[in-house]
């Protein structure tokens, strides 16, 4: 099959979704210029009224999308750096996320928020390195975090079709990754996790750009230590495929969660709680979390590396749960 980069898959999803439905529009900063390529060609194809470049006014363009959605459009709101959502937090959390319930279901809000270059990229320091999906999950947004080009295109198409606000996490480390992507328009449904690698000894739940890292660790451990690691990718964090998650956990009984968000109230904490509540009797070892540390990203690269979750830590955690035995 044809190979595309994650970024190109996003671009194709944008073009195909806007071509298929004229109520889809995109708004944000530097959309026409396409500073990375994911919005390339949109302005030429769809014009000023559907491709809107805004001033630096994150709160206003976020609220603008809410109003456009109430009036019948399907806006895509692109944040060029995820931490810009904090500037627009009222419009996201108090307005878009709460509006449907507060209106008693009178209106739908089919809005897709794209968070570009999510996570750490090396040397971008405290305000350009966040993976802010725990905040958004807490607020009730549907959130997808694709780990490869195929899922990126399919989850983007589904996000745009979904009649609720959806956040699409475009991990910085995933954007250049290549993978097979069909040319036709297709959707990856929400709430369907994916076994990216089958295994029987330990389940690694990995999120976004950490999925390829987890696969590499799993491969090495299979070859070097004959350990069979299953890598499970939730793909959509909310809704979460509990059934798929629990199936894998019950198969192996040993779990490591590999997630690049803060340890305290991060996504791994929620997964741990669900597993503890619903699969306690299947567990042969305590759940281990390999997460980001609870500090803003320091600038120095060695400090950054010390804060981020790493393959070596994942490997150590797998070995620890693998060899764990009740005393």
């Amino acid at each position, binding site marked *: 099959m044809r190979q595309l980069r994650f970024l190109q898959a996003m671009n194709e999803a944008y073009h195909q979704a806007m071509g298929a439905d004229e109520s889809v*529009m995109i708004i944000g900063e530097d959309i026409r210029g396409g500073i990375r390529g994911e919005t390339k060609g949109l302005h030429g194809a769809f014009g000023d*009224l*559907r491709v*809107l470049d*805004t*001033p630096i*006014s994150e*709160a*206003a*363009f*976020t*609220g*603008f*999308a*809410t*109003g*456009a*959605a*109430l*009036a*019948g*459009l399907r*806006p895509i709101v692109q944040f060029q750096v995820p931490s810009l959502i904090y500037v627009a937090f*009222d*419009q996201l959390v*108090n*307005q878009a996320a709460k*509006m*449907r*319930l*507060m*209106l*008693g*279901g*009178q*209106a*739908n*809000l*089919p809005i897709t928020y794209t968070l570009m270059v999510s996570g750490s990229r090396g040397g971008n320091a405290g305000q350009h390195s966040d993976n802010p999906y725990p905040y958004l999950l807490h607020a*009730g947004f*549907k959130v997808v975090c694709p780990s490869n080009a195929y899922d990126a295109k399919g989850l983007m198409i589904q996000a745009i079709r*979904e*009649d*609720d606000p959806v956040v699409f996490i475009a991990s910085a480390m995933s954007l250049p990754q290549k993978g097979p992507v069909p040319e036709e328009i297709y959707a990856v449904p*929400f*709430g369907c996790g994916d076994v990216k690698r089958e295994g029987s000894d330990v389940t690694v739940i990995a999120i976004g750009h950490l999925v390829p890292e987890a696969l590499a660790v799993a491969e090495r451990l299979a070859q070097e230590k004959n350990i069979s690691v299953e890598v499970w990718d939730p793909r959509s964090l*909310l*809704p*979460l495929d*509990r*059934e798929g998650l629990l199936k894998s956990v019950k198969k192996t009984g040993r779990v490591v969660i590999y997630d690049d968000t803060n340890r305290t109230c991060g996504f791994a904490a929620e997964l741990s709680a669900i597993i503890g*509540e*619903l699969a306690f009797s299947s567990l042969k070892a305590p759940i281990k979390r390999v997460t980001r540390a609870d500090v803003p990203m320091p600038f120095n690269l060695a400090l950054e590396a010390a804060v981020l979750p790493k393959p070596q830590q994942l490997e150590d955690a797998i070995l620890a749960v693998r060899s764990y035995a009740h005393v």
Partner: protein
Amino acid sequence: MEHKIEASTSNIMPAQFARSLYYDMARIRQFENRVVTLVDDNEIAGVCHEYSGQEAVAVGICGALTTSDIVTSTHRGHGHTLAKGGDVGRMFAELLARTGGYNKGRGGSMHIADVGIGIFGANGIVGAGAPIACGAAHKFKAARENRVAVSFFGDGAINQGVLHEAMNLAAIWDLPVIFVCENNQYAISTPLKEVTILDPYVRAQSYGMPGVCVDGMDVEAVYHAALTATERARTGKGPTFIECQTYRYFGHYTGERHMKMNYRSQEEVDRWKLRDPIKIWAARMMESGLCAQEDIEAIDAEVNIEIDRGVEFARSSPPPNPAEALDCMYAVPYPNTPAWGVEP
């Protein structure tokens, strides 16, 4: 471009329309009076922010709108939905948190809205409706629909960043938006003059849009300003900012009566009440021969019946089922999404 305009009385208005303005204002006044009683009787939970005193603003602005135009409302929003044509019974039902309410008991006083008649949310966050109005206006413009979006906000919103961002967007894209500042002089207890150097309408100049200031106790003046603004919006010329100088008769919210707050003197309150928008309009209609005293009394009686019936409807409407507390969150729910606080 920017100027203060005085109360306008020179334009001739059809009698039926003039009476409808009176009817709409009387409806809001009586509605809010009943709200106070229902709050005192503990039939309404939580807080209400009564619109009494500001009726000429909502009614004057909405008088220039059609049903397909939209507004974004505020925490003090009962008057906006009523002026836009909201049903008194469904309004009371929402305040009483019943399933027959506009928001099925999920919104309450601060978020009461009928999307069907173009209320795009009533906001508990000051200024937050402004960009929402802009987004709706963009759709109207892009689809070449001859519709207008109005954003209501108070003087308290004038120093809120998102309002300025929204005004800028409306201006650069010539959006059919009307920014209506209901200047009731106080943000809760903070006088506007202490926190703002110039009058709110002056801010419009920075965004290259007309900014006008009208007597917000004069429904005719508000209506004519709104007509000018809607015409400008409908002909693709862009947004207008209308400051309406007005006053709220009650406290910031119902409960304030029982707190000994003294940020407004009784003398000041009485002075504003001398210029009561409903009395002024009744007097002017009679002077102009648009109606007689009996007509006014007949309208008041008709509204009174409507209010009684509305409360009756609300009381007879069933409360929501707690088992359905998570309903309405998503258009497309999934298993465990949204999740309950305890595993079912």
